[in-house]
């Protein structure tokens, strides 16, 4: 049994007087214990909404979540709010994008780590703080004893994200969701945080869902990658397969637009033309069609289904990029 099995997860935002908007459209993927799975796509593709839906953290009103989120066989979407509350932080931990705003500015770091231990492990404050000290040490925060009493504004951005990782991993969850954990950090710190995540995931055996728009992050970390576009999974493949032979024109475009050190001087960067806002408003066609270099008539008429590929992945495309093109 998979650790996490997301089946046909859809999230529709509906405000009174506005047209409903489908942010996540029948997304399915699974995570095996200890596995690292990437959700990749640009802003607005539904990757963060997917993670919030799994955590049950979407606002209570104004949206409709359908499908199944099976965690060790139990459908999280059907749990009572209090039961879900028991699982959050204990079974599933989560790290967010902006470490400064994600930490409470008026509470010492130590208490912010300790409170999750108090909640789920029944520790008292003293014991929890002692454990918090070790956790801060484990995520590589120097002088943890002093940091316990400090506030988020007193420590650096990298340390804040380390503290958030300590919080998320405090109760040794079986699944960790990292939503763009390095986006708000500068490049050298990004690398440190990714190395730390990889090391912690290996040590603890925690499964990881890595949400990112950064293919560099995927390359270093993920076993399997799901590429999302317009709320749908458009391609799924093992990491090396995806990088070697991207079949969906969107994936291909993403990989091509990564700047390379070995490219000829003066050569223009590749860009995917248009923007996500160009999503076609009807649901029948492929959402990427208006931006696609490989578009055929069929793309405008019917959304292709997600179909297995010969290499063990899945692909949603009428006219995939030919293999010979993708091989560099």
């Amino acid at each position, binding site marked *: 049994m998979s650790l996490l099995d997301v089946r046909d997860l859809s999230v529709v935002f509906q405000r009174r007087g506005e047209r409903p908007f489908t942010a996540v459209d029948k997304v399915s993927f699974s995570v095996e214990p200890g596995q690292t799975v990437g959700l990749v796509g640009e802003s607005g593709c539904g990757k963060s909404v997917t993670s919030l839906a799994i955590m049950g953290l979407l606002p209570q009103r104004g949206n409709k979540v359908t499908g199944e989120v099976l965690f060790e066989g139990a459908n999280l979407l059907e749990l009572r709010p209090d039961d879900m509350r028991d699982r959050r932080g204990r079974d599933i931990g989560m790290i967010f994008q902006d470490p400064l705003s*994600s930490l*409470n500015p008026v*509470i010492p770091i130590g208490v912010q780590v300790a409170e999750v231990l108090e909640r789920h492990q029944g520790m008292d404050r003293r014991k929890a703080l002692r454990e918090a000290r070790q956790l801060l040490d484990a995520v590589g925060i120097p002088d943890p004893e002093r940091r316990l009493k400090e506030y988020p504004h007193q420590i650096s951005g990298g340390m804040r994200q380390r503290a958030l990782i300590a919080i998320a991993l405090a109760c040794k969850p079986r699944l960790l969701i990292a939503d763009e954990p390095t986006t708000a950090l500068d490049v050298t710190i990004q690398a440190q945080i990714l190395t730390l995540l990889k090391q912690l995931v290996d040590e603890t055996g925690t499964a990881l869902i890595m949400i990112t728009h950064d293919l560099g992050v995927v390359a270093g970390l993920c076993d399997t990658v799901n590429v999302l576009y317009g709320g749908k999974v458009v391609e799924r493949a093992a990491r090396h397969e995806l990088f070697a032979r991207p079949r969906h024109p969107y994936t291909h475009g993403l990989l091509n637009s990564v700047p390379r050190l070995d490219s000829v001087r003066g050569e223009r960067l590749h860009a995917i033309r248009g923007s996500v806002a160009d999503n076609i408003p009807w649901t029948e066609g492929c959402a990427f069609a208006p931006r696609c270099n490989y578009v055929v008539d069929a793309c405008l008429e019917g959304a292709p289904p997600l179909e297995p590929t010969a290499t063990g992945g899945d692909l949603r495309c009428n006219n995939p990029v030919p293999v010979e093109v993708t091989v560099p």
Partner: protein
Amino acid sequence: MLRVIVRRLLQLAVTLIALSALIFVWLRNLPGGPIEALLGERATPERRALLVKALGYDQPILVQYAKFMQRVLTGDFGNSIRTGDPVAEVIGRAFPATIELALVAMIIAIGLGVPLGYLAARHHGRLLDNLSIAGTLLGISIPIFFLGYLLKDVFTQNIHWFPPSGRLSTGVDNTEVTGFFVLDGLLTREFDATADALWHLILPALTLATIPLAVIVRITRASVLDVLNEDYVRTAEAKGLRHRVIRGRHILRNALLPVVTIIGLQTGALLSGAVLTEKVYNWGGLGTLITDSISGGRDYPVLQALILLAALVFVVVNLLVDLSYAFIDPRVRVR
């Protein structure tokens, strides 16, 4: 921290000196005055001149002010022109009555306002929220004296739930220790006096609390709405923390900063509201003293001291508010 306090106290001293000069000049330029009040309109010029000289009003205003300040610095505010009692004594009698009223009003305003504002925010856009907006608008717009007489009419004339005026029923025996009747009753173990004092306090305190209550509900609501959208609240939810902890530790503690500011500023409204409320309920505090001192022949010494006292209370409360920031928000802590 100490430096901040010292600096603020120096600012306070400057404020008070400037204010005292302003009041001094302003009062003496008002039409009418103690001479007319004491001697009547038909007094002979000779008698008037005599009294003017006796009270020192014939001297240049700068000299008068210098003498006044000289005495004030030794703690002597002079004697009331109306009664002849020392000003400190006159104010000392009325002060506890007003402070007791204002404190209870503030306890009502904060005690009801913060939870109501929180609930309104949590029910954003739904019935409770809309009711709170309509209700607070009414609370802010309704004149205090009107509300006072309305409550008094309903609850003391139509249904006799509360006493119409005063601080204690006649015949209730209380021993004055501090002048705060509720506290006195507790100190001397005369609990019937405490109960009676509280019973008298409810209507005036409710009247006085209306505006601060409405303001606090609104500010709390807006502030909680802001905080609910903060990432750290989402983090707290992601930790699976209990509602109680998220509400207290993560939402309210951050949301209360603007509320505390408003509480400080509302002290001013409370002091002016006390004048009207005390009039309606015949309360016998500073508000009554102010109106009596103005209408009863411009009792300069009492008025000067009263206005300075009001300013002092306002500035000190706001200093305490500023200092309390440091305890709520570590980011404003000064090292």
